[in-house]
């Protein structure tokens, strides 16, 4: 008999049906993955299984666990969750109580289950099982790294020895190396405890690495279900085919102009942050960027990769003039600056595309106002030229000039990122800094945005500095790669060579952590 059986599940909010007619079943010990983009209803489906939907959701269909339908009463459902279902959430920082030590949080999970007669476990054993040391138990969540927090979440989920572990995008907030470690940990624990896994992700490669059977969700419906191998190697539905194609990033490389002389030179940039200590103790300043030195040739696409917190975003902020270097200097076409003292007439030559397309537009300004903002850097433009430039850049990113009058909330994530690129292009810059340009986007639009960036580079002779931790994207886009660790640039090379024969320890770790391509 199957452990979990979902049949004809539908979830409605008011008049909108967000999940409709979803059916699948999980065998004991199986590792099942649900793939879907944001808004596809995959998270709501798992919340329905755990009985955690908001009160105004109307649920249809049946969900049975071991042949028993889920209890309606909240108290019985809470007991069932505690005994049989473990959950690991996406954002480990908000899922842990910041005021409780790790030991106490895990202890609480254990204690609640002792009351229900579950077999007893020790905090220490759980910590060891998820690969943490006992001293980590004494810490507060903010003293742990993202990966460690996710391990603590897993330990809490394991406290009741659940039959079913639900992991909802457990690695999307983590960087590449930690992601791989957490995925390996989950696979390991499931194998050891013969636990059933329901894994939710938008990342095909993570699902492929972890799951034996997968379902693809789109617009609240299950599009395709089957063996992981067969779905990924021979997708039947057009939507799945698009997803699989998009995850490979294979778009034909465009010819771009031969590299010119050095456009930007970064010379020994250092950025220290003061750390606030107590009244009488002085902390050593935190060095975010440590003597970074490199140059970008005009027309080049240079990528800066590294784990989160290695200082790559700080360096980008100094280059675009949002932050100021403690020491060292940057030269743009021979003119020297140190960060925020970037001369006004040079500002139009550098622009930045932000990571999060939802935070990068003022919700109260229409698109034309937001896009036109950088044109203040070119005084003396007539209203007509401004309009013309706006239309030009919006059309360059493949959108319609009629969209200029609309407001940001009317656009999808992919469209907003196109608009963000349009805003970066409106001053006709020479250097565009792209800070994780696609990591906040859905898989299926990532490829489109990258292809757009490649085409724009060829059309306008742009120079790119890409900040990312996504090696596959970097491999597809970059001419040259810099690897950064703890503020220092530790390795440099062409992507093909660098990823085939990594020299530095960090680069080797990064390459090793790369998930295999699907099918």
């Amino acid at each position, binding site marked *: 008999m199957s452990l979990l059986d979902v049949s004809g599940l539908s979830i409605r*909010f*008011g008049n*909108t049906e*967000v999940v409709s007619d979803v059916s699948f079943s999980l065998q004991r010990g199986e590792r099942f993955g649900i793939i879907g983009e*944001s*808004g*596809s*209803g*995959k*998270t*709501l489906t798992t*919340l329905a299984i755990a009985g955690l939907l*908001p009160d*105004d*959701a109307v649920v249809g269909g049946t969900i049975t666990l071991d042949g028993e339908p889920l209890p309606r009463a909240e108290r019985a459902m809470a007991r069932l969750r505690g005994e049989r279902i473990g959950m690991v959430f996406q954002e480990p920082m908000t899922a842990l109580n910041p005021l409780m030590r790790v030991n106490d949080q895990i202890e609480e999970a254990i204690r609640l289950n002792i009351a229900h007669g579950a077999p007893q476990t020790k905090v220490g054993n759980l910590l060891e099982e998820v690969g943490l040391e006992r001293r980590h138990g004494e810490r507060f969540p903010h003293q742990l790294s993202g990966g460690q927090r996710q391990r603590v979440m897993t330990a809490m989920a394991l406290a009741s020895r659940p039959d079913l572990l639900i992991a909802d995008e457990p690695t999307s907030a983590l960087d590449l190396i930690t992601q791989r470690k957490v995925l390996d940990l989950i696979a390991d624990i499931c194998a050891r405890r013969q636990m059933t896994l329901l894994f939710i992700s938008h990342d095909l490669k993570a699902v492929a690495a972890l799951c034996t059977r997968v379902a693809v969700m789109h617009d609240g419906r299950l599009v395709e279900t089957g063996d992981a191998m067969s779905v990924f190697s021979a997708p039947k539905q057009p939507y799945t085919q698009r997803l699989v194609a998009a995850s490979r990033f294979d778009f034909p490389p465009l010819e771009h102009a031969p590299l010119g002389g050095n456009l930007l030179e970064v010379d020994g940039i250092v950025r220290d942050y003061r750390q606030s200590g107590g009244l009488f103790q002085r902390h050593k300043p935190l060095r975010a960027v440590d003597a970074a030195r490199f140059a970008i040739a005009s027309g080049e696409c240079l990528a800066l990769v590294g784990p989160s917190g290695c200082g790559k975003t700080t360096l980008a902020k100094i280059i*675009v*003039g*949002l932050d100021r270097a403690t020491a060292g200097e940057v030269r743009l076409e021979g003119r020297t600056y140190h960060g925020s003292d970037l001369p*006004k007439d040079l*500002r139009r030559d550098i*622009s*930045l595309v*932000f*990571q*999060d397309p939802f*935070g*990068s*537009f*003022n*919700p*109260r*300004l229409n698109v034309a106002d*937001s896009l036109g*903002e*950088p*044109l*203040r*850097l070119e005084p003396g433009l007539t209203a007509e030229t401004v309009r013309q430039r706006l239309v030009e850049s919006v059309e360059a990113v493949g959108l319609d000039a009629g969209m200029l009058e609309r407001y940001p909330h009317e656009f999808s994530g992919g469209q907003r990122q196109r608009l963000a690129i349009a*805003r970066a292009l409106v001053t006709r810059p020479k250097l565009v800094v792209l800070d994780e340009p696609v990591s906040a986007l859905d898989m299926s639009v990532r490829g489109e945005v990258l292809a757009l960036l490649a085409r724009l580079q060829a059309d306008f002779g742009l120079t790119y500095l890409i900040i990312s931790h996504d090696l596959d994207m970097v491999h597809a886009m970059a001419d040259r790669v810099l690897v950064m660790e703890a503020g220092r640039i530790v390795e440099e090379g062409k992507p093909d060579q660098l990823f085939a024969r990594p020299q530095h320890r960090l680069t080797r770790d990064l390459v090793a952590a790369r998930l295999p391509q699907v099918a």
Partner: protein
Amino acid sequence: MNRLWSHPSLVIGLIATLVFVAIGLLSLVWTPYPIEQIDIPRRFLAPSAEHWLGTDNLGRDMASLVMSGAWTSFLVAAIAVAIGVGVGVPLGLAAAAWGGPVEWVVLRLTDFVFAFPAVIVAILITTLVGPGAVNAIVAIGIFNIPVFARVARGGALSIATLDFVAAGRLAGLGNAMIAWRHLLPNIMSLLIVQGTIQMSLGILAEAGLSYIGLGTQPPATSLGLMLRDAQGMFLIHPWLTLVPGLAIVLIVIALNIAGDGLRDAIDPRLRQGNPNVLA
């Protein structure tokens, strides 16, 4: 607009507030009797067709006094809120946009003003220039400044970390333009809600100041002043205290309901039925 009407408390609060404002406005052009008209023989009358709410110890018509008093209360509170917004919001925005020493100065300034209750400020002003409605306005207005400065700064700080503010800085906008274009429009809802709360607090404060004799002076009247006049006769003629007291309570409740409703209607986090927050 449909969104506003889907919040019943907002509708009730707004309508009640508007009714009081309309009554107050009406008192400017018409009251059943002139409020200065003292008519001792007709004092302490019970409510009747002639005097809807009866008459007070000087034979003045209570209905006329309440109408006029409500207007004074609204006017004092509204101007005080305007003073608070006009001075406090720019200070708060400046603190958030410039940071550093500017922020320090603004925060210490607000701490300093917070340390003096409105009553102390009013006593100070009265000692300097004598009592009157204008003094109440200034005293309550000064008290409103740090409130709005804090609210504006708090709201602006959370907006200032968003990428579109950084995009504005990249586009060469100065701190003042950042505050005007990007910060202010995004904290408007906070300010509107705080405004209604300060309105109701202002009405209470005006009543309090008039009650201790530092606010409105006769022959003009306010709800607080009516309370003061009636308190000596509370045991003999409780009606004279109940009428202005209930009027204050009703106005403040109406404003608070309207403020709560506005917050629910404006704050997107409290908006119902939005499945996108989960998916």
